[in-house]
């Protein structure tokens, strides 16, 4: 589904290389986790994959569902099913959560040539998912993320994800800011989305989240590339031993 080959990316007009020949293949149906020390390039990877400005790809390629991902605009990538759960979700003042989401959902549907989702269908779906994630209906009427706690913002990212039903999910430090109960609720939501047509890339600093969302593969990202890989148990070993062995 996602094939990253020798990806190299710089910032500040090439002054700093963040990703340095990173290669990673994620087949459909699999959940991969990326762990690693601070500053290894984990968030940069998520931004380069989703097309944020400010990063120059100087080498390598990314193929997503057979397409050249790096040639696509951010909204085209989103429409093609790529979703990023942000580490720091943005506040959108004056735009109620439901309005934001419905606008986004219908923009995506339109780009794919589908009809907009009807209002009753949208409301029904939103209510069900909100209830699963224990999000109070009141919150959906408030401007998106404005005045929400860190945990509420993260939960709202998962809400959006479940509403948009993306194919390739990238979660950047989704567990930070969540207490144990919230973590379990979020993990249940994510696990419900696991399926043969969908792939996930979970970026996390701690192993804790991986107790709830058990990955197929775990990779260590250090100095801009994947330096080690293993199965779910590998994450536990990393947690116990730290990343020192992989740092430069």
């Amino acid at each position, binding site marked *: 589904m996602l094939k990253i080959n020798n990806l190299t990316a710089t910032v500040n007009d090439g002054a700093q290389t963040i990703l340095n020949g990173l290669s990673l293949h994620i087949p459909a149906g699999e959940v991969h986790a990326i762990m690693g020390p601070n500053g290894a390039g984990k968030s940069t990877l998520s931004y380069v994959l*989703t*097309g*944020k*400005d400010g990063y120059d790809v100087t080498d390598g390629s990314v193929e997503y569902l057979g397409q050249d991902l790096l040639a696509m*605009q*951010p*909204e085209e*990538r*989103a*429409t093609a099913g790529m*979703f*990023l759960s*942000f580490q720091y*979700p*943005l*506040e*959108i*003042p*004056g*735009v*109620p959560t*439901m*309005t*934001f*989401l*419905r*606008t*986004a*959902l*219908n*923009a*995506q549907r339109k*780009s794919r040539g589908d009809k*907009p989702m009807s*209002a009753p269908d949208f*409301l029904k779906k939103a209510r069900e998912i909100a209830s699963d994630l224990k999000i109070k209906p009141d919150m959906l*009427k408030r*401007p998106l993320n404005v005045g929400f706690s860190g945990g509420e913002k993260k939960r709202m990212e998962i809400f*959006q994800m479940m509403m*948009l039903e993306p194919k390739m999910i990238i979660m950047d430090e989704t567990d930070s800011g969540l207490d144990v109960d919230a973590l379990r609720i979020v993990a249940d939501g994510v696990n419900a989305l696991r399926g043969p047509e969908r792939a996930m890339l979970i970026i996390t600093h701690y192993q804790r989240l991986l107790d709830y969302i058990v990955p197929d593969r775990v990779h260590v990202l250090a100095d801009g590339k994947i330096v080690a890989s293993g199965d779910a148990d590998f994450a536990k070993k990393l947690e116990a031993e730290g990343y020192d062995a992989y740092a430069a």
Partner: protein
Amino acid sequence: MAEIKTIAKDAIVTETVKGVEALEADKYKYGFESDIEQEFAPKGLNEDIVRFISAKKDEPDWMLEWRLDAYARWLTMKEPTWAMVDYPEIDYQDSYYYAAPKSDKDGPKSLDEVDPDLLEVYAKLGIPLREQEVLAGVQGAPRVAVDAVFDSVSVVTTFKEELAKVGVIFCPLSEAVKNHPELVRKYLGTVVPPTDNFFATLNTAVFSEGSFVYIPPGVRCPMELSTYFRMNAQGTGQFERTLIIADKGSYVSYLEGCTAPMRDENQLHAAVVELIVLEDAEIKYSTVQNWWPGDAEGKGGVYNFVTKRADCRGKNSKVSWTQVETGSAITWKYPSCILRGDGSSGEFYSIAITNGFQQADTGTKMIHLGKNTRSRIISKGISAGKSNQTYRGLVSAHKKATGARNFTQCDSLLIGDQCGAHTVPYIESNTPSAQFEHEATTSKLSEEQLFYCRQRGLSEEDAVALLVNGFCRDVLQNLPMEFAVEAQKLVAISLEGSVG
């Protein structure tokens, strides 16, 4: 219920998005010029022109005298220069002061007699002039009575008869001068006197048309009243004058809309609006101003120098100004409230968007004279391109205005790094019991927010429209629903091409 509301709001966003798409090709869709035979007064301004306009309107002597006095006064006045706007000197002799569609000379008796080309112009503008068409619209859609003004004359006023049944008078001002002289003489010029300021005095001398509204005591006007102003003739100034009187315990909601063709030259628009609110009455006045702002190089566009003022004469009277200003090359406009009656209140909600080379110096004045008067100012300024915008507002309390309260919030949003936003508040209190609060913020449309929206599937322009509409939400919520849709579309269209 709340969910239905949400859906309604969503529909607006969808509309916004559609509005942008529809206009990708030509940004200013009202820029067409209509090929209609026009009758002009000779170019230039002198006493004879003033007499000519008055004669065209078949006015009584008192009206002509009033105009001539104003003209004599105007000759002694100087154009104000304190506003933060910059434009070449205006040659007042190089403009026409009267233009009228020729075929309309004897005045149409019904719509069937109106020049079909003219009807087409209004159809293009999306303004329903045929009542049956309005009635044939969506079930439950609110009906709006319309007065359509084309250059210097009123073309048609709809729903007149139905309004007359409840005693509401809604007609062109020139008609009111003839049919209701007692009302016009009693109120005209009592809020904005002929000597008020350079542009208002000019207007008094040469105003050619406008709307007149009178709501009798205790009547709640059964529908929205609306005037659409359209400048069409080349080299012509537009000087309309609107007078609205809400008698004791009455209520009216009024909307003004304006558009003009795209032209290389600058056109002058100097209007006067006077509102008189008696005891326990309320006027809600909304403006969607979309005069041609000039092209991408800053060439052409309307100079919009307007004096709007409301006099809350009676106890517990109320005025609410809501404006969405997206057009004009230069805007110089301060809709104000004189809070004379005890317990009266004034509100000013404004969205001003400038793009390209537009300049706007706009705000309000809240003059507290009576006891326990209240006012509220919410101003949202959005600057993009190379435009410059100033909020200028006065809040004052007379020494008798005990217990006066004001809340002011001025928010500015900058898009790009070549535009400017300025806030100039004037606060004067002569009573210790007045409570005035002022809040101001300036922010930039963030790249991070834009990326977040795009990651969810919105195009860059849709994302800007959504974020700006969010920024303006407090004000948009105060517009009548059907106009909120129009305003949101305008917001999107005005900012097209402002990023990337």
